[in-house]
């Protein structure tokens, strides 16, 4: 009797612990081998873009929190920068410094989740607990500043909702001192762990030209070896004042652009974020964080596409203003939305278990994919 050779369609999700949300992957498999992967999205669609058209400009900010809910500061940042460019207003130095510090803390917090869940998905549960402990430090820093732990509504057009707490600088320095050694610990525990390397090295290799053509950004693109970072490429806020490196994938344990490279880029980026915070934290000038907030936000007619480097990649806001109090159109270029398109390309020829490793290394957040 001959072996059965027909292919089978397997649904992974919408409810699956390692899809990081409600995502359905339609796998076409032959035994354990993946022939094709089709992502089905939209389960978390909350009509952000339609809502935004009915809101005034400041009212949109809380909605941006809920796009990439693991990096809400970054979303606020991108949106307020876009509106400020439309308005053409100058921001006080103090606000710029605090914004950069918050965005970098958020980047670390977000990468910690990415790394932790990537590990946990493929069986390494211990690092998950350690990393969430450290993320807790950052969340309490945010809580101390604005009262919220996840969805902050912290950055306002022209300013910030609250000034920093008197203890903030001291506690942030404490965090830096605590966190540096933890990265070393993480590397010993997970990064150079033999089992982890076996699961991620040479899996889901993304060649650079494919990455560019698919529009990948953030650690996914940098993992493939291109040092592209919006903070350096198209500097916004005051990022051109800081000295930091852009880590790229080097194929240290496998091939350039594999899952491990994407993972390791995130680890290295946390170190760079610490460097930026260190440079900024002692130089916060005096000032009033509310002084530049306009009384009435009514941008002139015009369009703007403005982008920032979010933990997951290039977050862009395309805003059309028709001169009214509410935006005419807001389009979000969500990095995860673009990066998820790569799934079909990356999974071909791998095994079912690798899908989880690849998905974890792309680090998606369904909140911003479905908007």
């Amino acid at each position, binding site marked *: 009797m001959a072996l059965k050779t027909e292919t089978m369609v397997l649904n992974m999700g919408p409810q699956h612990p390692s899809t990081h949300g409600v995502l359905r992957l339609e796998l076409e498999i032959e035994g354990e081998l993946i022939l094709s992967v089709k992502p089905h*999205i*939209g389960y978390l*669609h909350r*009509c952000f*873009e*339609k809502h935004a058209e009915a809101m005034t400009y400041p009212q949109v900010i809380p909605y941006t929190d809920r796009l990439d809910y693991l990096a809400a500061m970054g979303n606020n940042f991108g949106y307020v920068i876009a509106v400020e*460019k*439309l308005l*053409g207003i100058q921001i006080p130095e103090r606000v710029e410094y605090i914004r950069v510090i918050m965005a970098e803390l958020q980047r670390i917090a977000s990468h910690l989740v990415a790394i932790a869940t990537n590990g946990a998905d493929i069986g390494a549960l211990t690092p998950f607990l350690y990393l969430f402990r450290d993320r807790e430090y950052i969340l309490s820093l945010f809580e101390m500043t604005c009262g919220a732990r996840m969805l902050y509504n912290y950055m306002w057009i022209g300013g910030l909702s609250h000034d920093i707490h008197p203890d903030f600088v001291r506690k942030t320095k404490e965090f830096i001192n605590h966190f540096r050694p933890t990265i070393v610990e993480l590397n010993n525990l997970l990064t150079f762990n033999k089992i982890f390397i076996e699961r991620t090295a040479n899996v889901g290799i993304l060649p650079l030209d*494919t990455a*560019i*053509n*698919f*529009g990948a950004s953030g650690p996914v693109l940098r993992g493939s070896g*291109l040092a*592209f970072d919006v903070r350096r*490429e198209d500097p916004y806020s005051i990022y051109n004042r800081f000295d930091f490196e852009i880590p790229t994938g080097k194929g240290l344990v496998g091939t350039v652009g594999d899952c491990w490279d994407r993972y390791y880029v995130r680890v290295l980026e946390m170190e760079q974020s610490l460097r930026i915070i260190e440079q900024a934290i002692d130089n916060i000038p005096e000032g009033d964080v509310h002084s530049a907030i306009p009384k009435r936000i009514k941008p*002139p*007619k*015009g*369009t*703007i*596409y403005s*982008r920032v480097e979010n933990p997951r990649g*290039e977050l*862009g806001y*395309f805003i*059309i203003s028709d001169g009214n109090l509410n935006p005419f*159109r807001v*389009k979000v*270029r969500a990095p995860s*939305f*673009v990066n998820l*398109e790569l799934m079909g390309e990356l999974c071909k020829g791998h095994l079912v278990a690798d899908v989880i490793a690849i998905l974890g290394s792309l680090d998606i957040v369904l909140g911003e994919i*479905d*908007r």
Partner: protein
Amino acid sequence: MKKTEEIFELLKTEFCEVILGLDKETPTEPIISVDSMQVHNVGAFLRDNDELNFDSLMVLSGVDDANGIKVKDEDGIDMISGGTLSVYYHLHSTSWKHKITLKISTPRQNPKVESVYNVWRTSDWHEREAFDMFGIIFLNHPDLRRILMPYDWEAGYPLRKDYKNPEFYKGMKVPY
């Protein structure tokens, strides 16, 4: 690195009538208007020309210009008749670091655009989203289905300015 004006001149000599104009009035970014049926050719030229090398499509966004006439249909519901829908393409070159914005407009009654799927693979889902939200048909797109809305959504295209929420979806009351 080239300015939008230089790129516009270059395109103008290469494509003549296909390039419709350069809008410099918007304060923040100049926009080059292109013929909707030729946008894939313009895109391929922009990507492959060594001096331009626009290898990355940052974002593709559909827009309802809402520039038609407001009318009431037989049930007395407000509708927009005539006017255009637009698609904006924000391009970027990873090697030359320059950026430009292209724009096409297409009639609201019969919105058709050539797909740029074969030029930038990024456009795959973005075009599906523009189709989903505005009903813009991207010709030669291999897989033009709804993406964010349910596949069987029949109440129209949500981001159009005259969209009305349906009362029922598959016999279920839509609560708000």
